[in-house]
């Protein structure tokens, strides 16, 4: 379970998160929508401790992420994250990309790591690209590789930050299909996305962020069918 309690976060004078309260239960799929600069990415990077927070707290399975005593490296093994920008390690093959952290962080043996990597890459449909360097992959393939790389760490939670927004339209589908598959397998996920159709289909709940505030959160039928927040109404009419 991820519990976010009254989290505030500023970059200099700019307050990006203005007291967020949110709980994500095990097995839940939460999608986060909202305008650019509303603080969605920042929230995700705070959840796995890549960014410090100013006040409030975030608990993952009861462990406080930003407590001094927390071993972040250990915690991050539980929380996979895939970013908006592709960040394959260019000097490693696809297989090696997925093996690296398993060997270095989880201390798995090479064979174990390779087997797991091959399994996850097959899972996301890259079984035929194992020995290729990332520069030879399309954007969609790179994103799927990044998903496999995170999954290979056997995380309990997956965070996705607009994983399709840097992709050509014809490549969006393949990545969303991968996310759908994960959702149907019961993975706990937080997906920041601009794909409303996708949000409607897969989410248990949808959260709308506006200027650092979580303005509305509800199951998709409710949020899309009868939006209460005026900003959300504006946002939805603009995106349709």
């Amino acid at each position: 379970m991820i519990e976010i309690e009254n989290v505030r976060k500023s970059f200099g004078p700019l307050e990006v998160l203005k007291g967020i309260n949110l709980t994500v239960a095990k097995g839940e799929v939460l999608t986060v929508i909202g305008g650019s600069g509303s603080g969605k990415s920042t929230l995700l990077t705070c959840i796995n401790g890549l960014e410090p927070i100013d006040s409030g707290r975030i608990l993952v399975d009861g462990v406080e992420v930003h407590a001094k005593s927390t071993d972040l490296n250990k915690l991050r093994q539980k929380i996979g994250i895939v970013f908006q920008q592709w960040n394959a390690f260019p000097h490693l093959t696809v297989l090696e990309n997925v093996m690296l952290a398993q060997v270095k962080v989880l201390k798995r043996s090479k064979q174990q790591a390779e087997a797991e990597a091959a399994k996850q890459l097959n899972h996301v449909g890259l079984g035929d690209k194992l020995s290729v360097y990332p520069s030879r992959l399309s954007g969609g393939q790179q994103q799927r590789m990044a998903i496999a790389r995170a999954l290979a760490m056997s995380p309990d939670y997956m965070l996705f930050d607009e994983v399709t927004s840097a992709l050509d339209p014809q490549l969006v589908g393949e990545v969303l299909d991968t996310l759908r598959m994960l959702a149907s397998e019961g993975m706990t996920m937080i997906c920041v996305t601009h794909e409303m159709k996708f949000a409607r289909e897969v989410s248990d709940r949808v959260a709308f962020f506006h200027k650092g505030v979580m303005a509305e959160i509800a199951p998709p039928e409710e949020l899309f069918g009868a939006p209460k927040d005026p900003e959300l109404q504006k946002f939805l009419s603009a995106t349709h």
Partner: protein
Amino acid sequence: MRGRVPRIGHSCILPGAAMFNYNFRWNQALNSLPQMLEGALVTMEIAILSMAIGIAVAILLTLFRLSGNRLLGAISATWVEIARNTPALFQIYMVHFGLGGFGVHLSPYLSLLIGIAFNNAGYLAENFRGALKAIPETQTRAARSLGMSPLQAFKNVVMPQMLRISFLPMTNQMVWAILMTSLGAVVAMNTDLYGVTSELNARTFRTFELFALAAVIFYVITKVITLSAGLLAARLFRY
């Protein structure tokens, strides 16, 4: 000697090799070739060792700079600036005679090796710094998000890319290292190619022939290095 017509078969193997009043005696120089080649081995040994040390120290200096610790950062910056802003000859001199002032007396070999390694490390650290700027921050972020420690992220993700970007500068530095071995002259180094050549010269006074031969050997060594670096790069960097 003056005005004497060179006799073929006397000491001159190249017909017509006399220029003006000077008799070239390539024979004599060529007879010394085995000794000079042994010197060339020492030269290469020093260059390779100094590069190995230099790369290791440069990586350390880069880590110092990245550490955010002010003292370590200052050490790194000082090292880099001294290495880059004083003559290599001065640096070698300093290792040999300067350390002598502290009661540390190093052999010519060690003085030369350490002096060149010091220079290599400074220049390479600066190169690494430039290379790091070309590696996006997202690489470290991605590595950290997979649970790697800062050091693991550096070692497994950032450093390999840094070394690739710096490969050409490293090759150039290796050539420099070879050329710098000649500076051992100031610390009475006499087993490297330059040292051997000048000892031979002191005995025979065939300065031009001997040093011309040494120049050819140096030239061949540097070309071999540049060529093999190219081949190595092709094998190493397939991405």
